[in-house]
């Protein structure tokens, strides 16, 4: 039976329940509500929420599987609740971090001061797969590179938040935040109303304002498009959703051409000039004339128009340099270098495999560490040491020895947990948190973010492509 009376927080930090079994201050209303429901009612509400998501067609595609490629993102109706004091720290920490990373990208492609001052090793930058030589000497419109960021945060058993990774290229998931909220408002209407949860629905408006802010100066009412790889992309739903919410065009590469020095859409009435693109295609595929020539998704000649200042793009090409997982280790130093302040949000301690001492330690402690490749995402190219087999560890040891630059390792964080419906019981499951940050005229942090939950008992991998789900996130 679904109740908190038998709930066990274990040795983990629980986001709703204190170690003594009492609800945390902001969670009291919710816990009381769930306790007051007749037996079976919570599961029924869960089923109703899932049916709603399927009916709305809120699905994602899983790469590398032919059949049943379309799934709903598993969703758990018990929300994660973030207190307002925790949130204040997160918000100021994220603003500081994004500001510094933007300075860093601008510097790396232009003056290279931070490299000359040897705060970050130069060869690390130049050997990064996400470093774009084509961006050297370039300053994007308004000096902003990373317009949209989704930063992954985790909370350890000490109750502190740590930054796990920065996603500055095409972070996805914000549409789930908005849709999860719609569903949850209908699932727990009274508790939601009484808890005074901060709204997340501002996001599309803020995104639109940010995109308008980038438009070339001489353009009064800019034409804006969301550039998607198409319906087979795993985040297609989100691309379509955001363009619908903003009321802008959703375009594919095949809808755009470069002519007369501008980018145009092909419309039923001829060509129409585009001024700003929120592109959701990776750098590699965005312009076959500059990056991968075999790309069918991009627009030939786009980068040339972009460099001439005749179209703006979010995010700028080249931002990937700042979410290289090895360069990540230097972010606290980067923050200090550009702001003079200590980082408000700490990093997870990181061992850099190109460093001989660190590498020796990593290879000797593979069974305790999480190892990550510098430029993989979605939970791919990753070893969770304590949960891996002897053979898997041996394979990774070889990879590290062969290409030390490309790997880093971190101690296993015992991620915090949130009560989650499992069958007809409530059990703790591990979560992370991805807030979304917009950098336009000012920096905006959406109050909430995507709480991803590892639905398998004991699992620490929260990625949707690896069996993770999501929860609504309530910031009070």
């Amino acid at each position: 039976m679904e109740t908190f009376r038998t709930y066990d927080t274990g040795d983990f930090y629980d986001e709703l329940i204190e170690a003594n079994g009492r609800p945390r201050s902001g969670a009291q209303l919710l816990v009381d509500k769930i306790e007051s429901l007749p037996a079976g009612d919570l599961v029924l509400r869960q089923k109703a929420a899932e049916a709603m998501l399927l009916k709305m067609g809120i699905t994602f595609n899983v790469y590398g599987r032919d059949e049943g490629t379309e799934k709903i993102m598993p969703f758990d109706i018990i929300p994660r609740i973030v207190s307002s004091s925790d949130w204040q720290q997160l918000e100021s920490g994220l603003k500081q971090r994004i500001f510094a990373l933007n300075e860093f990208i601008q510097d790396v492609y232009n003056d290279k001061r931070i490299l000359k001052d040897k705060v970050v090793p130069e060869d690390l930058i130049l050997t990064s797969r996400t470093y774009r030589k084509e961006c050297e000497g370039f300053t994007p419109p308004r000096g902003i590179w990373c317009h949209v960021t989704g930063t992954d945060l985790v909370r350890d058993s000490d109750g502190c938040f740590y930054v796990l990774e920065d996603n500055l290229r095409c972070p996805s998931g914000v549409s789930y935040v908005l849709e999860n909220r719609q569903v949850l408002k209908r699932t727990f209407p009274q508790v939601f109303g009484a808890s005074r949860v901060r709204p997340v629905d501002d996001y599309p408006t803020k995104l639109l304002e940010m995109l308008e802010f980038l438009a070339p100066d001489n353009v009064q009412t800019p034409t804006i498009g969301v550039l998607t790889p198409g319906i087979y992309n795993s985040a297609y739903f989100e691309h379509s959703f955001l363009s619908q919410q903003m009321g802008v065009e959703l375009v594919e590469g095949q809808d755009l051409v470069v002519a007369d020095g501008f980018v145009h859409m092909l419309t039923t009435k001829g060509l129409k000039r585009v001024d700003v693109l929120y592109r959701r295609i990776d750098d590699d595929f965005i312009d076959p004339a500059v990056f991968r020539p075999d790309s069918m998704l991009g627009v030939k000649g786009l980068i040339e128009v972009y460099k001439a200042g005749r179209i703006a793009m979010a995010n700028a090409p080249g931002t990937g340099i700042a979410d290289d997982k090895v360069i990540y280790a230097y972010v606290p130093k980067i923050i200090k270098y550009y702001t003079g302040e200590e980082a408000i949000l700490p990093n997870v301690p990181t061992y850099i495999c190109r460093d001989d001492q660190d590498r020796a330690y990593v290879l000797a402690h593979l069974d305790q560490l999480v190892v990550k490749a510098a430029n993989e995402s979605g939970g791919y190219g990753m070893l969770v040491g304590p949960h891996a087999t002897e053979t898997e560890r041996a394979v990774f040891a070889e990879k590290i020895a062969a290409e030390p630059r490309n790997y880093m390792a971190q101690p296993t964080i015992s991620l915090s947990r949130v009560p989650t419906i499992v069958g007809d019981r409530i059990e703790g499951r591990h979560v992370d948190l991805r807030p979304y940050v917009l950098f336009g005229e000012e920096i905006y942090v959406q109050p909430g973010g995507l709480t991803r939950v590892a639905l398998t008992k004991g699992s620490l991998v929260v990625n949707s492509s690896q069996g993770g789900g999501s929860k609504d996130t309530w910031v009070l």
Partner: protein
Amino acid sequence: MLSRVANSIYWMCRYIERAENVARFISVNLNLLLDMPSEKGKHWEPLVMITGDQALFEKKNSDYNRDAVIRFLTFDRGYPNSILSCLAAARENGRSIREIISSEMWEHLNNFYLELADAKSLTMALEDPHRFFKIIQMRSHLFTGLMDSTMSHGEAWNFARIGMMMERADKTSRILDVKYFMLLPQADLVNTPIDNIQWTAVLKSASAFEMYRKEHHHITPRKVAGFLIFDSQFPRSIRHCITKAQICLHRINGSPTGSASNVAEKMLGRLKADIEYTDIDEVVDHGLHEYLDRLQTRLNQVDGAIGTTFFNLKPLIENATQEQSQA
């Protein structure tokens, strides 16, 4: 609007209309069989003939029995015009433009497809086909109704209507063609009860029976053909479909009907004028089959002209830039 979007919405509606037509054909045939002396297979083959895909059917099946035809026309994913394939295609198109269509349309279409793709559907189609195909038809109508009442009647809607009307005109011409071909040679059956039932079925295949009765009362092959081609008010007559398609086409460019500002308008206008100034006696004298065959070709040409006028700008642009750089 984007050419790709216009193309998708046009095809989304064509596929829904196509699925509904197939469901209606099967439904009418099932009813017809209740009144007919049993002759194995004879009554299921024409259904596949209407689609024009006998070769594909025969490659997969040895004879035209009820279950094989229902499976083929309804659930065969390898057959591009089966109801399931049509809905899958309509939904893929809908998915690529869901920011353009209303959520009501998208949610209905999504649900429509998901339930049809469910294994339970096949069982129901074989065990209770009357109910099953009725549901398919009603869901298609619901989609059309949602489109009409939840989506602005702007450019996208006009493309949707053109797609639907072109498909409907094509299907009506095919029903008529196949049935006329099948029924007419049996001179000994003329004016027998069987003959009447057959022609009633033709009308029902186009949902036209009741409306025909109000107009003509008695059922004769010539009048049935005339009604399905030339009636100006019946929503599935070829003339009506073409008239409606023309209105929508001219709304897109804002040009008045009666003149043409592009190839598509020109070709559709000519087709409409021809239909308006032709009658059924003329058609029968020259051969109904030849007339319908020519009509289908012209419908295809209009479809092609809509494509080059609105959907496929790219080749034109590439040619233009090539010419410019050579000059």
